[in-house]
């Protein structure tokens, strides 16, 4: 299990199909260095969730399959793993849409995250207290039924629950979806804190390009199942194309990278 390379996650040219037919990812390669936050950006249907599910091996439960390429986590191929084995290896995905257990209390939700670990009652309580230091809000609400908490609280529950599994790496799927700007900032602060204090590597799928890049080290932009652009978060934030297409600072009427590429190739021809 020793992994001397600097990357905790290494995805090489994967292709993903659903139902053996529908091609969701054409060619996605990305790396997550140990201890870093990497953002995966793109519009609806670009393939962000599919990429994350390919990594957590949750694709199988949606009749999806990696049909080409390879994924290495911590130096080992994840080919034959099941989602619960991945959790055992320290890779936990926080699914899109929070997905709390509505009928369980907040605290039960969080404790359920420790299911894969063999912990005594005392250990669990100790872990809980540690988790609550990051999610102070949840401690106040720990006896409430999760379904009756706010959207932001539910997102925190989902992240706290994942942290109870003691992950080396978190996959966050649109953690700020539908949240007010203030909450978005709060969630990102917590994520950043978990990254620096707990040393958790993070792969983050987001539509909120601006905030995501400001809180990441590196970014990938995907469109229709392909990586279109990648670079350090800083360079992407200053990239003209990113500014135009994702940050809404538009000059021309171009809508996506395909238009940009088409234009560029036309320019080349005319030259």
């Amino acid at each position, binding site marked *: 299990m020793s992994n001397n390379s600097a990357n905790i996650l290494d995805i090489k040219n994967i292709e993903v199909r659903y139902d053996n037919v529908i091609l969701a990812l054409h060619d996605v390669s990305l790396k997550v260095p140990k201890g870093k936050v990497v953002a995966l950006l793109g519009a609806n249907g670009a393939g962000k969730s599919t990429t994350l599910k390919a990594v*957590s091996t*949750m694709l*199988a*439960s*949606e*009749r999806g399959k990696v049909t080409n390429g390879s994924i290495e986590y911590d130096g080992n191929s994840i080919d034959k793993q*099941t*989602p*619960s084995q*991945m*959790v*055992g290896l320290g890779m*936990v*995905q*926080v*699914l899109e849409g929070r*997905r*709390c*257990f*509505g*009928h*369980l209390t907040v605290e*039960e939700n969080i*404790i*359920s*995250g420790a*299911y*894969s670990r063999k912990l005594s009652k005392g250990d669990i309580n100790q872990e809980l207290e540690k988790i609550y230091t990051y999610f102070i809000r949840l401690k106040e609400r720990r006896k409430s*039924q999760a*379904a*009756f908490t706010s*959207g932001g609280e539910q997102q925190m529950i*989902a992240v706290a*629950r*994942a942290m*109870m*599994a003691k992950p080396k790496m978190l996959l966050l799927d649109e953690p700020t979806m539908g949240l007010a700007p203030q909450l978005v900032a709060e969630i990102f602060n917590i994520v950043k804190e978990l990254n620096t204090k707990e040393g958790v590597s993070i792969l983050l799928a987001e539509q909120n390009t601006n905030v995501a890049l400001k809180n990441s080290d590196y970014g990938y932009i995907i469109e229709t199942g392909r990586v279109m652009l990648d670079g350090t978060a800083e360079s992407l934030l200053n990239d003209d194309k990113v500014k135009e297409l994702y940050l809404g600072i538009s000059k021309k009427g171009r809508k996506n990278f395909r238009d940009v590429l088409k234009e560029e190739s036309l320019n080349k021809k005319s030259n």
Partner: protein
Amino acid sequence: MVDELLFFMEVLVGGLLAGTMYSLVALGFVLIFKASATFNFSQGAMVFFSVLAFCGFMQDFNIPFVLAFILAALLMVVVGLCTERLVLRPLMNASEDTVLMATIGLGYVLEGLAQAAWGVEVRRLDLGIGDFPVPWIADNLKLFISALDITAGLVAALMIIGLFLLFKYTKIGLGLRAVADDAGAASSIGIPLKHIMLLVWSAAGVVALVAGCMWGARAGVQFALVDLALKALPVLIIGGFSSIPGAIIGGLIIGAVEKVLEVYIGPFFGGAIEGWAPYVLAIFFLLYRPEGLFGEKIIRRV
């Protein structure tokens, strides 16, 4: 007047206790419905299968009572294991309707296996508890209440306490409730669905065995036990498909209502309304409270 009141009490208490027999059958359904949101059509067959095996162990192999019961319970765990491996796992990503159809098929398989192994004749099951009034209660309270009914009531109470403790305070119980809420999210945090399914189907199998013993002692161990499952349906509609207390209360209501109606209103309809009165009650529930008395309302944040 006192006599009439006593008679009413007797009908009511008898009905309530008989109702716990329905509750026992309904419990098995609830367990499986909670975990996989599927109505398990094979539950009746599981009742028949388990109690027939129990009888077979005792009568054909002369295995003592307690050991035979343990063997039958273990057999139901094996059935749960096979069901998980051969039926549920291949259908992991299939729709709930597909699983529902599979349980119908599973029912036929279990019925067939049971009869192939143990024969088709009706067997007598003697639990050592008579299905006749307890003399002490008859003498002191002037109520004629069957000892078997009282036993069924006690057993049902024990089962509900046991299951409640299991769900509320154990790790596997927490896992089960998590899976019941959102199986996808549960597997994303490493709760292994197959273990939970195995647990649930085994537990439902053992519950089926207990219910089968009670009914077998009353009506004989025979194929008709399979149809018991039908009686559990109104119980579940009234109590709620996903609630264990609901299964118990629903059973009590059905038991009491059908006996009281039978005795007091039955004559106007020419009797035998026991057979259909519970379904009428169920229809009213479906119209006015479809989630049942204790069923989990679908919670939606607005």
